[in-house]
């Protein structure tokens, strides 16, 4: 799931009215947890067992930080308030929105948060919506299919599969496999004869393997360092990659802002390890993202419009800085919010005659939260 705005409970039937005993009003989160949750989730949060249970769904282990830390408070409260199906989870999870107030549910959640005692795990609020270009600081378990299509200039359709696997509270392995098709430049005319048009060629880009480590975080900020190795799988004459060994260290920073807004920052460099032919140069890049999440309805689909500002500079004589703007919107596709789509366009801000405009999208599956067909 993704971070989501909070709402108030909706009626699921034609009408309802609630009477709650006043005795509930002044109890602590731990006491309310014992009243409303411990029968199934266990007094220790690890999940109760009972022959009397009329359901078979496995109960989550709140002491497992890998599970319990990932989702933001808002999603926990929504599920507790409106029941499991609101986020595509078990129908056995009842709705407590008529038994507990928002404040009581939040105090219960505060108690649940005490079951995970390892604070090295960054909280789910820091799992900000993923931009199209800028890397996130939060370590993830995701599979992303990205596509970029040139809309002018030389044609190119470049895809990449990005596989991310989290290790422990802070680590993440990332493997990127680019592939696609690109229109090759037409050869120069010879002796006044017309040149033939370039031919489209397909193939593999430069495969990258990286490791991310979330170095530091607090409740609203997260900072990570990543190192990637690019393999020369594209070939030296391909437009789908540079075709040289390279390393790419970079830093990323994520910031939660008020009113469900957020920001990402990334800065790094790509250093080719084989520069003998002078074809590939070291490049510095820096990226910044500003966005905000809206939720349609009270517990529904999350819409996260963002805008990225991209800067890149190749270290060679006379090279300037390429600036691009990438307006985009990420949309959660299913109730569990672990399947997402992002649509955007990369607009060059300078050298617009030489650099193409690109249509971009990704399809994201946060596979830790469930299968591709779960939670719709």
């Amino acid at each position, binding site marked *: 799931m993704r971070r989501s705005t909070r709402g108030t409970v909706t009626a699921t*039937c034609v009408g309802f009215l609630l009477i709650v005993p006043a005795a509930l009003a002044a109890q602590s989160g731990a006491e309310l947890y014992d009243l409303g949750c411990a029968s199934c989730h266990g007094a220790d949060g690890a999940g109760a067992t009972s022959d*009397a249970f009329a359901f078979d769904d496995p109960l989550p282990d709140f002491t497992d930080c890998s599970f319990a830390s990932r989702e933001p408070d808002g999603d926990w409260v929504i599920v507790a308030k409106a029941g499991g199906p609101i986020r595509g989870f078990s129908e056995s999870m009842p709705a407590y929105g008529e038994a507990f107030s928002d404040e009581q549910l939040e105090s219960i959640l505060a108690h649940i948060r005490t079951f995970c005692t390892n604070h090295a795990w960054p909280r789910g609020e820091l799992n900000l919506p993923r931009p199209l270009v800028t890397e996130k600081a939060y370590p993830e378990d995701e599979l992303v299919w990205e596509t970029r299509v040139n809309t002018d200039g030389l044609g190119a359709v470049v895809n990449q599969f990005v596989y991310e696997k989290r290790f422990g509270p802070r680590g993440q392995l990332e493997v990127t496999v680019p592939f696609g098709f690109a229109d090759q430049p037409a050869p120069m005319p010879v002796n006044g004869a017309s040149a033939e048009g370039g031919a489209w060629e397909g193939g593999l880009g430069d495969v990258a393997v990286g490791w991310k480590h979330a170095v530091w975080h607090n409740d609203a900020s997260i900072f990570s360092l990543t190192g990637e190795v690019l393999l020369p799988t594209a070939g030296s004459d391909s437009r789908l990659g540079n075709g040289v060994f390279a390393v790419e260290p970079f830093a990323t920073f994520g910031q939660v802002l008020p009113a469900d807004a957020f920001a990402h920052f990334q800065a790094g460099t790509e250093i080719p390890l084989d520069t003998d032919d002078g074809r590939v140069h070291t490049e510095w890049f820096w990226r910044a993202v500003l966005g905000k999440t809206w939720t349609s309805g009270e517990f529904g689909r999350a819409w996260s419009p963002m805008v990225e500002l991209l800067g890149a500079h190749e270290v060679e004589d006379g090279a300037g800085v390429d600036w691009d703007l990438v307006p985009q919107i990420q949309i959660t596709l299913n109730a569990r919010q672990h399947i997402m789509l992002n649509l955007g366009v990369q607009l060059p801000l300078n050298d617009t005659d030489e650099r193409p405009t690109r249509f971009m999208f990704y399809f994201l599956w946060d596979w830790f939260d469930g299968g591709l067909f779960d939670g719709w």
Partner: protein
Amino acid sequence: MAGRTWMTLPAAALVVAGATMLVTAAGATESSSMVVTGRVTFTGSAPAPEPIDMSADGYCVDQHTTPVMDASVRIDDSGGLAGVLVYVSNAPSGAGPAAGDETLLDQVGCIYTPGAVAVRVGQTLVVRNSDQTLHNVRVTPTLNRGFNLGQPMRGIESRRSFDQPEVGIPVRCDIHGWMHATLHVIDHGFHTITGPDGSFELPDLPAGDWVVEAWHPTLGTVSSQIAGGGAAAIELEFGG
């Protein structure tokens, strides 16, 4: 009859296993309205009631001085079958006596009380927890919208209404797996639930040709056709 609305039954309710019908109409006279009285009975060997194991929740155990029997088929000494929905299945929508404001489904001693409850379309069902222990109330209709509510302590009440007629809606508590009830939503006033002796009464039924149906969650349905006005006494008999 103009404006008749047929009830839609869950598939399970259409299975009439070994049911027979015995109709004894008596004293029917031409009149503008009629009263149908009668009794639902069971003949044959009913499943033996089993004691409910409530040991998973000490509170539930403490609420009873004698073992509580899980009687899915509740029969008195004379064969009267309790907790059966009896309704006129071909009555027009909206007909019949006005409904009361609310109908109560309570949870007392970790048992649904009553075990079967009928409301009219639009009428309010009150679900109350009279126990000082957590219950969830999971209602799983086919035509109406279901819900699953957590009721963590004594005195909590939730109210719901339903917009589609539907017979045989299961109600259960996932925490106490022995807790089951049945909810019926009827779009007219000619319905009732049989008492402990299987008796029932449907008053103020207009003179006409009617089908009186009895519905039980495990035994299925039996029905009887009646005609005319005045008074009619019928016996609806399930066979074992």
